[in-house]
């Protein structure tokens, strides 16, 4: 068998390449895959690179939503108009890796890797994003929380790829906070993404690095939603913020590892959730 790197120039070609290749490895930005290859823990026999598929590039507005191409890079998310449409995602993008990483790493890749520390995941969870895929069985659409099924596990089927992520454009403040032991280029210890939907009158809190998969803090959300004066977009009861943080922490299942401890993660979630809500609605 001849090893190969397929570089399809259309989505149809990409689907076909994946269908015909034997044990294909999907390559997008390469920032996760190449780490594994360089370490010798993955040895691909054939590679399908998605980075030149036009349908997977960039983003576009679709009514009340934006459609983010799977190969949209974090550098693209960080700046420009997109940053004002989905601010929490832009804030998260700026915390990811280094500028060089952000120039290469893609949103689809972050989803596909599905690391518990994946920086975009809590934001996508808070936004109730949907993940669009294509494969031999056609096109599928899954809520992000159904897409990510476990530590580095997803609902992607064999020969299926992510094509896009659909997120709503919402009126209301958004916040993303990430705790790491360094001021830049650091794997998250805890993340909190808060999205306020003033029109839908909802408060949504996504948490990362505190469970095998991104978490929505439903009890905290319910408390906050019940406490907001939606006409002024403020929470008057000053005890709500602290309680919001505590409920957020209760929705997590963190672990001790070499980056931090479960006790700190639980505590830091409560602090970050509280601060996010204070910034947004105090």
């Amino acid at each position, binding site marked *: 068998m001849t090893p190969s790197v397929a570089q399809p120039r259309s989505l149809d070609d990409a689907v076909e390449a994946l269908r015909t290749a034997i044990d294909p490895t999907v390559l997008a930005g390469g920032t996760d895959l190449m780490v594994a290859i360089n370490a010798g823990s993955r040895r691909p026999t054939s590679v399908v690179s998605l980075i030149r598929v036009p349908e997977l590039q960039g983003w576009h507005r679709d009514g009340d939503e934006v459609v983010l191409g799977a190969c949209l890079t974090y550098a693209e998310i960080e700046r420009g108009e997109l940053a004002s449409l989905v601010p929490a995602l832009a804030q998260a993008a700026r915390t990811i890796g280094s500028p060089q990483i952000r120039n290469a790493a893609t949103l689809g890749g972050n989803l596909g890797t599905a690391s518990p520390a994946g920086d975009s995941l809590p934001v996508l969870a808070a936004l109730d994003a949907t993940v669009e895929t294509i494969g031999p069985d056609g096109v599928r659409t899954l809520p992000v929380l159904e897409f990510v099924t476990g530590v580095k596990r997803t609902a992607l089927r064999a020969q299926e790829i992510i094509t896009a992520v659909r997120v709503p454009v919402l009126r209301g403040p958004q916040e993303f906070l990430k*705790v*790491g032991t360094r001021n830049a280029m650091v794997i998250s210890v805890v993340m909190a993404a808060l999205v306020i939907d003033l029109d839908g009158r909802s408060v949504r809190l996504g948490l990362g690095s505190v469970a095998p998969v991104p978490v929505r803090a439903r009890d905290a959300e319910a408390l906050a939603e019940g406490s907001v004066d939606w006409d002024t977009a403020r929470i008057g009861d000053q005890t709500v913020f602290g309680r919001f943080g505590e409920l957020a922490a209760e929705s997590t299942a963190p672990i001790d590892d070499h980056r931090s401890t479960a006790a*700190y993660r639980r505590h830091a979630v409560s602090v970050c959730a509280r601060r996010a809500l204070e910034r947004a609605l105090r």
Partner: protein
Amino acid sequence: MSLTGERVRGGLGESARRPDGGPKVAGSFVFSSDLTADGMVWGSILRAPYPHARIRSIDIGPALALPGVHAVLTAADVPGDSSYGLEHADQPVFADDTVRYIGEAVAAVAADHPDTARRAARAIVVDYEELEPLVEAEAAITAEPIHPDGNVFAHLTIRHGDTTASGDVVVEGDYEVGMQDQAFMGPESGLAIPDGDGGVDLHMSTQWLHVDRDQVANCLGLPHDKVRMSLAGVGGAFGAREDVSMQVHLCLLALHTNRPVKMVFSREESFLGHVHRHPARMHYRHHADKDGRLVKVEARIVLDGGAYASTSRPVLVNACCFAAGPYAVPNALVEGWAVRTNNPPCGAMRGFGAVQACFAHEAQMDKLAAALDLDPVELRLRNAMKTGDRLVTGQVVTGAAPVEELIRTCSGWPLPAEDPEPDPMTLPGGAGRTADGSRLRRGVGFAVGFKNLMYSAGFDDYSTARVRLEGGVATVTCAAAEVGQGFVTLAEQIVREVLGVDEVILAPPGTADIGSAGSTSASRQTWMSGGAVERAALAVRDRRDAGEREPIEETYEYHHPPTSPLDENGQGNAHVSYVFAAHRAVVDVDLDLGLVRVVEVATSQDVGRVLNPLQVIGQVEGGIAQGVGLAVMEEIVMDRGVVRNASFTDYLIPTALDMPDVAIAALVEEPEPGAPFGAKGVGEPPTISSSAAVAAAIRAATGLALTRIPVRPQDIALAHRDSTKLA
């Protein structure tokens, strides 16, 4: 392979440019990982996955069966000494029957491609019997020995003055320093080329060519002159290249395959394949009178040396000699242990034992100041060591000891203003946008430290240099390892100064051409190799001035004054000279998240004489970066002998967004008697007390005890939460 590219100008005291700078910015400088040779194959090492295990059997068959594999070697293939070591040869070239730390070399492979070599190494079948790892240093003192040479590398007691003395005020504390890594950027790498006559040429990045050469030759069972080592470009060192890493393996593979063999450690392998800074546990008790004058310092220091000896003994000697800090201490009782465990071997890192002790003695000084209700700076001034005072080893400090001036200039430097509208990127947490202005606290901490220059305790420390003058061009031959510190620049400056010539050429350093220059460590090359180059150049000048015709060549072997080992009470004239530094750190701390932003580190350094201002600044700023790293983020995380973070993803060193502004309050130029040009080495002092200053600043900001570095976010946040709950 020339290590230098352009001619530079400038004599002593000027910021002469590095001769290797041009190639380095152009990408043409040849680092050890850039080497290549015709017919070259690639080496790879199989490393043990357990911290403690018995090897029942090794089957290299599956590796040899892979196409492209040229050699697979194990302990049985080592023709000479089976072990090596800087001071004591107790580290096996390959683990034979026992594995004593995770990542210990078990076998080596040569193959036609690095991926093939790696796959072949993984194809070797090793049958291990896992053993319980010994991971607690304190327990190791009395535990069943895990090596035939026992578990105690060194035990030292210093009894100074009246060890029963007591003071009006007594403060006591336990302190801990985590395992720091040198984390140089250029991974271990080298190229060994067989000479076809049973010998081998080894091109390596190292700190000490001749001692590497001796260890390699002993293991190969060859006369020393059959192994020739040349310095290949070194991508930083900081102590981690003092010990042999891949040198023996590379030469064995080259001799077995009769081909050039190249090896480059991955970053993970680099973390596993070199020594680290010793983790330390320290118990201290300080006694002072009512006026804050130190009466007695008691300390018990336990260093975890890991599986093999490396430089554990001299590191312990240093930790104990400098345990009380740069203060006049009339009475002291210091007990130190350096022990063997199944943790990774520890050895030299910038500061060499003084860093660990400094963290503890400076925390104690702050505690004492609080107990006396004295300003911490004032307490230090009252006790500052000066020329004529004695160390706790009884030795009189005869050279420059401008401790008071360092403290005054550093503490007097203006504090940085608080930014009323800070960029969130500059707050604790940085890009993570976590900071809440109302929950930030600023703290200021101060620390002073010192250590010895050059080798001590009876070691015959010397350097050799040759200067040849021909046609108005001076050529310097010296085996001093340039690891980034800028000795190449200094050597040229010295020769220009002495001989008044413009053009100076540095010959590539190698063992075949000249005797040892000693190690690039202990802040010693400016003095030792600088001294050798100066004396050789002076001898050339004398002959030229006497009218002799060129070429004129002189070789000089420079020795520093002899020192003695410490006696059974830890007393004796063990050191030649000392260097001092003061640091003041300013930090912002997020009380709830425990995240720290080091805002500024101001420093005053004792330098003797500034020979190259730009290079001194570079050493100071770089040394402080490593001190800041140890204070707030750098640690090899161990879990029952297993390294959990052997990567740059998880072993964090400061980025440009973590590194504070450095304010150099003073470079104190009090010439050191006996030192060439009066200059002291400047490599280590910036690292010694900067960690302690940052930790003190975090304590000041939080009011927490924080007796361990690195200070982790959870150490601050959870302790702060608990303290406010109690309140």
